[in-house]
C-alpha cells in the first residue's frame, strides 16, 4: 500500500508537467513570439496590429476549421482553395440579380454540394480522399474559371462589403472566425456527433462495430469543410471587393500546416479546433513580424518551414517523454 503511494506521488508531478507541455506547447510558442515581436518592433504590441492579425488570419482560419473536422476522421481535403474560389464567384455573379441573402446561401450550398461529392466518392466508391479531393481541386478551379471565362468580377455592391468592415472596431471576418471556432469546439467536445468523429478517426472498424454509420459521418465532415471553404470565399471576395476565379490557390497548404501545428494528428482521432485557431494565428504572426521588420519574403518562407517542423518535433518529443 505504502509503496504504491510513494510511486504515485513521485510520478504525478512529472506527468503533469508533461501533460501541460503537451497541451500548451503551442501557446508557449505563441508567447515566445509575442515577446520576440514586441522586442523587435514597437508597433507589434499595438491593438490595431492585433486586429489586423485577426483579419489576416480569418480566411485561412475558417478554412482550417473545416479541414480539422476532416483530418479528425483521418481524411484530408485538398480542394478547399478551389471550392473557396468557386463559391466566391457564385456569390459575385448572383449578387446583382438576387441580392446578398440568396447569393450567400447559394454560394454556401454550392460549397456544401462539392464537399458532399468529395465525401461520397471517398467513402462509397472507396477512392482515397487524397486523390478524390485532388481531383476536386482541379475540377472546381476549372468550374470557377469557366463561370466568367477567367475574368474577375469587380464593382461588387456596397451590401457585401460588410465582411471587410469593422464591428465595434473589430474586423467582422475575425469575429466570424472566432464565433465559428467556439461553435466547432463545442460540437467536437460536448456533442455525441463530435465524440463519434473521434471514435471514427481513432479506429473506424470498431466505430462501425459499435453501430456508428461511419461513411455518413465521414461524408458529413467533407460537407462541413466544403461549406466553410465557401464561407471563407464569401468573406475573401467581400473583403477584397472582387470575385477572383484564382482566389485561394495554395490556401490548402497553409490551412493543413496550421491544423497540424495545432496538434491535430494526420492519422486521425486526435486534436481539435482550439489548436488549429492558435496554429493559424501563429503562422500569421510570423509573417506579421517579418513584415513589420521589413525582412525579405525569402527568409519568411525558410523560417516558416523550420517552425512547422520544430513545433512537430517538440510535440513528438514531449509525447515520448510522457510515455
Amino acid at each position, binding site marked *: 500500500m505504502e509503496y504504491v503511494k510513494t510511486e504515485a506521488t513521485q510520478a504525478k508531478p512529472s506527468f503533469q508537467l508533461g501533460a501541460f507541455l503537451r497541451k500548451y506547447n503551442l501557446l508557449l510558442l505563441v508567447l515566445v513570439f509575442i515577446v520576440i515581436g514586441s522586442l523587435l*518592433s514597437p*508597433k507589434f504590441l*499595438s491593438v*490595431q*496590429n492585433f486586429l*489586423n492579425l485577426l*483579419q*489576416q488570419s480569418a*480566411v485561412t482560419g475558417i478554412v482550417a476549421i473545416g479541414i480539422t473536422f476532416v483530418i479528425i476522421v483521418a481524411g484530408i481535403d485538398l480542394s478547399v482553395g478551389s471550392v473557396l474560389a468557386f463559391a466566391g464567384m457564385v456569390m459575385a455573379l448572383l449578387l446583382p440579380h438576387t441580392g446578398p441573402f440568396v447569393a450567400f446561401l447559394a454560394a454556401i450550398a454550392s460549397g456544401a454540394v462539392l464537399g458532399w461529392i468529395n465525401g461520397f466518392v471517398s467513402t462509397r466508391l472507396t477512392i482515397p480522399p487524397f486523390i478524390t479531393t485532388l481531383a476536386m481541386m482541379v475540377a472546381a*478551379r476549372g468550374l470557377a*474559371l469557366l463561370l466568367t*471565362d*477567367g*475574368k*474577375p468580377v*469587380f*464593382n461588387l455592391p456596397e451590401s457585401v462589403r460588410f465582411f*471587410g*468592415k*469593422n464591428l465595434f472596431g473589430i474586423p467582422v471576418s475575425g469575429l466570424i472566425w472566432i464565433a465559428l471556432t467556439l461553435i466547432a469546439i463545442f460540437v467536437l467536445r460536448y456533442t455525441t456527433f463530435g465524440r463519434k468523429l473521434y471514435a471514427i478517426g481513432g479506429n473506424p472498424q470498431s466505430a462501425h462495430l459499435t453501430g456508428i454509420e461511419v461513411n455518413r459521418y465521414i461524408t458529413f465532415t467533407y460537407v462541413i469543410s466544403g461549406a466553410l471553404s465557401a464561407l471563407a470565399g464569401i468573406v*475573401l471576395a467581400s*473583403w*477584397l*471587393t*472582387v470575385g*477572383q*476565379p*484564382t*482566389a*485561394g490557390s495554395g490556401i490548402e497548404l497553409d490551412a493543413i500546416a496550421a491544423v497540424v501545428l495545432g496538434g491535430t494528428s494526420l492519422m486521425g482521432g486526435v486534436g481539435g479546433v482550439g489548436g488549429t485557431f492558435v496554429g493559424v494565428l501563429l503562422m500569421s504572426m510570423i*509573417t*506579421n513580424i*517579418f*513584415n*513589420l521588420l*521589413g525582412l*525579405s*519574403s*525569402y527568409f*519568411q518562407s525558410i523560417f516558416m518551414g523550420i517552425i512547422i517542423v520544430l513545433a512537430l518535433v517538440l510535440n513528438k518529443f514531449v509525447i515520448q517523454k510522457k510515455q
Partner: protein
Amino acid sequence: MLKTLKKGKFVLLTTLAASLVFAGCSGGEQPAADAGGGDDSSKKLVIGFSNVTSESPFYTALTDAAKAEAEKQGADIIVMDAQNNIEKQNADVQDMITKGIDVLILNPTNPTAVTPALEAAKQANIPVITVDRPTEAKVTSFVGRDNKAMGEIAGKQAVSLLGGEGKAKGKIIEIQGDAGGKVMMDRHDGFHAVVDKEPGITVVEGPYSDYVRAKAVKAFQDLLQAHPDVNLVYAHNDDMALGALQVLEQNNMVDKVKIVGIDGLSEAVKAIIDGKYSATVFNDPVKMGSLAVDTALKAAKGEQVSEYVDAGTGLIDSTNAKDVYSETAVFAEMK
C-alpha cells in the same frame, strides 16, 4: 457473266485513273498558288498560338484579341493553353506543328526551357513570334512592352504627385511583384531610376506579393502599421494597388495617401474616376494580341518584320480615365 465482270473492272480502273489524275492536278495546283504569294487564294494561313495560362484575365484577353484579329484578317488560329507548364508547352507546340501551322505565336512559360519548341519550329521552317515575354534564343520577332518604361511613367507621376521634380517630398511604400521575376525587376528599376533622384523621397520596399490582391492586402496592413506616415503607394500591378486601397478605406486614410499602379485594370480606372486612386499605366492586352497576330501573318507571308515590336504604353490619370474606361473590358484599351 465474264463480260459483266470485265466491264466492272474497266469502270473501276477508269475511275481510279481519273481520280489519280485529278489528285495529281490539285496536288500541282497548290504549291503554284503558294508561290504566287499566298494571299487572296484558296488556302487560309494557319496561326498556332501557345499561351502561357488561361487563369489570368490578362492572358485570356490576349487570347481573345489574337482570335479577333486573326478572324479580321481572314486567317485560322489554333490556341493552346500551356497551363504554366513548360513540358506541356513544348508538347503543345510539337502537336500544332504536326497538325500543320504556318506561323507560331509563343508566350513562353520560361525564357530558356522552351528550346525544344523553338527547335521543332526551326526544323519545320516555321517563323516564331514571341509575345508578352521574350525567349533567350533569337526568334523572328518579339511583340512586347517595355516594363521599365512603365515603371518610369509611374515614377514620374509619383514625383509630380509629391510636389514635382526637385521639390518632391514624402514616403513611398512599394508593393512588389514576384521575387526574381523579369517584369518585377523592370517595373522596380524604371520607377527607382526616376524617384531615387529626388532627395526628399524615401521608398520603403515592401514584401513580394506575387501580383495577388489577397497577399498585398495583408502585407500592406502590416506596412501601414510600421509606416503610418506614408504619402504614396506604388504597386507593381493594379490588383495589388487595389488591395492597398481597400486597407486605406478601412482605416479612413484614402484622402491622405496617393495610389499609383500599373496595368490599366478597369477596376483601377473606375477608382481613378471616383477620385480614390491617382494613376495607372497602360498595359493593354488587346493591342498586344492584335499586334502579335498582325506581325505573325506578315512573317508567314514572307514579309520583313522588325525584331522588336513595341506594343506601347502611357499614363492613365483623372484627365483621361473617363475616355478609356469600359464596363465590359477587364483592361483599359489604348486608342
